[in-house]
């Protein structure tokens, strides 16, 4: 049990920073550049770890709570989540709600930390973040409802259990396909990727997530980057398991399928970021509402 838990966390902690590296490399290749080394995020984290702090005079302890929550929450949430066919260390009926609400807690503190600086730009980012998440959350709930209906259980372990390959083949296949698309959109929103947010933009006015963390520095900023990578991997795991639902029966193969799936996902995100432009801000809610309506439709498909 303890060993399982530690191994689970170890995979997460070691592998997560690779994903942003892969995304950056994919984008560079698309732009015809060499791109940074794949391990660049690890170097960045190491360097930030050794750096000192500069703190804003207006900030209080809430400002340091933001990065901590951002790092702790994905770690705790990952304990409830099966990595591909590898079972979750902790699993109980109803843990999917805890999973969703843990990320809401992280959002609360990230946004509060942004407001703590008193910068109008960071306030703007915080407002946008909470707005878009409001719209993405019902989608996630509808998707989970579909999965719960198909699996008959209420824990992430059973939701993403061994019944998935059969479910794809049965009449529920189209619904699962729709949910896969919806979850991909949720992943892009929650991890602030193009077309919803541009992590590499230069203009503070147009940012969402990046602008909220402008004032963090040193290890705190490292925690934020690390937390973001962990979140990408944790939310990406949902998609990977849904798209590659095979159980090989041997843990090494399962692990390889899972990690390979994650890398594929990172490449896919990189491709999306390369071929799409950021949406105009007023269009983002429309797309998100459209996505939740599609997920409603998927639910209707499995309920009838």
């Amino acid at each position, binding site marked *: 049990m303890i060993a399982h838990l530690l191994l689970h966390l170890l995979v997460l902690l070691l592998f997560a920073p690779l994903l942003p590296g892969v995304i950056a490399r994919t984008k560079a290749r698309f732009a015809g550049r060499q791109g940074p080394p794949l391990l660049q995020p690890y170097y960045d984290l190491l360097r930030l770890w050794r750096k000192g702090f500069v703190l804003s005079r207006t900030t209080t302890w809430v400002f340091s709570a933001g990065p901590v929550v951002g790092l702790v929450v994905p770690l705790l949430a990952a304990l409830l989540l099966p990595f591909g066919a590898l079972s979750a260390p902790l699993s109980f009926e109803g843990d999917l709600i805890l999973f969703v609400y843990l990320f809401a807690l992280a959002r609360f503190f990230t946004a509060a930390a942004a407001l703590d600086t008193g910068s109008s730009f960071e306030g703007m980012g915080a407002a946008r973040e909470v707005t878009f998440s409001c719209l993405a959350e019902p989608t996630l709930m509808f998707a989970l409802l579909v999965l719960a209906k198909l699996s008959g259980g209420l824990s992430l372990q059973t939701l993403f259990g061994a019944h998935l390959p059969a479910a794809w083949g049965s009449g529920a296949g189209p619904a699962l396909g729709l949910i896969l698309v919806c979850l991909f959109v949720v992943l892009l929103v929650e991890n602030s990727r193009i077309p919803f947010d541009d992590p590499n933009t230069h203009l503070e006015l147009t940012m969402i997530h990046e602008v909220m963390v402008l004032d963090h520095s040193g290890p705190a900023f490292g925690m934020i980057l690390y937390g973001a990578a962990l979140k990408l991997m944790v939310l990406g795991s949902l998609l990977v398991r849904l798209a590659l639902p095979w159980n090989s029966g041997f843990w090494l193969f399962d692990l390889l399928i899972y990690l390979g799936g994650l890398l594929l996902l990172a490449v896919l995100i990189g491709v999306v970021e390369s071929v799409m432009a950021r949406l105009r801000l007023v269009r983002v809610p429309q797309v998100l509402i459209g996505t939740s309506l*599609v997920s409603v439709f998927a639910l209707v498909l499995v309920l009838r």
Partner: protein
Amino acid sequence: MSDVNSVILLVVILLNFFTLGSARLVACIRAVALQGALLALLPVTVHGFSGHSLILALGAFTLKGLFIPWLLLRAIREVRIRREMEPLIGLVPTLFLGVLATVAAFLFADRLPLLLEHQEGLLVPASLATMLTGFLLLMTRRKAITQVVGYLILENGIFVFGVLLSTAMPLVVEAGVLLDLLVAVFVMGIVLNQINREFATINTERLSALKE
């Protein structure tokens, strides 16, 4: 084959949502063209290869998938409009209504006294949903072009329903419907051009002032 059917119909329904939620006319017309082309596959996938179904599929494909969209795109180029600027109710509320209509169609289709083999698939609800979407577009949009798009979607819904019956229904009926539509689009196109030349607008609300 039922898998292919349900995938086709699913994409058709998603295209319904897309036309409801999109403000760009060109994108709407392309979506409808794609919808028509996909629907043209249905007679074959539902009834298998036969002369009857092939003719139906080919006719539908050329008309719905190619010819009518081409006419519409041309009309747009002539009157130089790109966007549905002022729908009567906003895009997001129409989208909401569209999904509500689709859900209602699904619920209603379950209550219909259908043959057993028709109850399982998506054909009936998809047809109802598509027709309702067509009505919704007709009711909420102002530009004449989007109204034509609405007619097309309405017809697509009828076509899906027709596929169910196509073994029982003579080709002539389906051909008649298609012909009607074609003529309608022609007339619309010509009238549209004339109106645009005369009044410099194709807003249907203002046209209603002509009746006096």
